[in-house]
């Protein structure tokens, strides 16, 4: 049974810290993984980022003051790791021959993507969004997260999030209109 208050106390105690952190990993691994995977598409990349997230959380545990929930804190670390990865990847892709290959084509050859053409197209449409806008879209469209919860998670105002989501929906809609 997950008891966050108890877990936080155990994390602060050297004797119980490791066992408590293992419980944290077990509790949040899937949720964080899918948040990351939707942004980076590749399983291998998502796995790397997820591991880096937990490493950063482990080494930065003393920096967790408890004023936010553990999940929110971990999500922010994962979010930063993901965005940093995408920035580095974008710089590399500009020098890489594979940059010309679209997301849909890459997903077609990805062994850990079993969607059909329509599902590949949706992912390609989402991939056209700027990173932070894509994140807002994923959280609202797929997770149906409330704007207020998203605001706390991302540290952005509700108004900006609503505007961003509206803009993202318009862009994706235009993408499909162009394909139809």
């Amino acid at each position, binding site marked *: 049974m997950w008891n966050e208050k108890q877990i936080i106390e155990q994390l602060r105690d050297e004797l119980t810290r490791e066992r408590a952190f293992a419980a944290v990993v077990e509790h949040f691994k899937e949720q964080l993984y899918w948040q990351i995977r939707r942004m980076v598409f590749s399983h291998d990349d998502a796995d790397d980022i997820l591991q880096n997230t937990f490493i950063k959380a482990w080494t930065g545990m003393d920096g967790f003051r408890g004023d936010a929930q553990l999940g929110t804190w971990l999500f922010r670390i994962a979010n930063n790791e993901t965005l940093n990865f995408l920035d580095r990847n974008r710089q590399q892709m500009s020098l890489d021959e594979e940059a010309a290959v679209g997301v849909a084509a890459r997903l077609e050859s990805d062994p*850990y993507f079993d969607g059909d053409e329509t599902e590949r197209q949706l992912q390609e449409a989402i991939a056209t969004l700027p990173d932070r806008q894509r994140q807002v879209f994923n959280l609202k469209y797929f997770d149906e997260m409330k704007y207020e919860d998203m605001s706390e998670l991302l540290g952005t105002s509700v108004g900006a999030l609503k505007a961003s989501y509206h803009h993202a929906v318009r862009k994706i809609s235009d993408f499909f209109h162009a394909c139809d």
Partner: protein
Amino acid sequence: MINDDMTQEETYIREHDSGRRPFTVPEGYFEGFTERMMTRLKAEEQAPVAVVRAVRIPLWRRAMRYAAVGLVAMVCVGGAWFYTSHRPTSDAQAQLTAQMEFSDFNYSDDDLDAVLDYELVDNAHIAYYLTEAY
């Protein structure tokens, strides 16, 4: 009405969305993840730390370093004095400086779009979205 527009556009997108999660993971990935993670954390904590031995630097070499630092400091101070005492103050120079500063702000529309997208703000309908969205 922004809400009706949003519902129609979202409905249109959902017509292209099977509702199924098409991403998969290798078999047993999540089941073994926690153990792999904790093993890695332990391994990284126990990784050997490189030991740097202190090396005694000869006196003459230390003296050379101090002399080099002093020389660089003299060049900087001399350069600053020379610049401040020979800085042009004419109106023509001031005009040229103002022109150069103004040219720094000639961003293209593409640059502005990228910045506004990045800042999560719609550049075409800022006021409309922020007011109607409430």
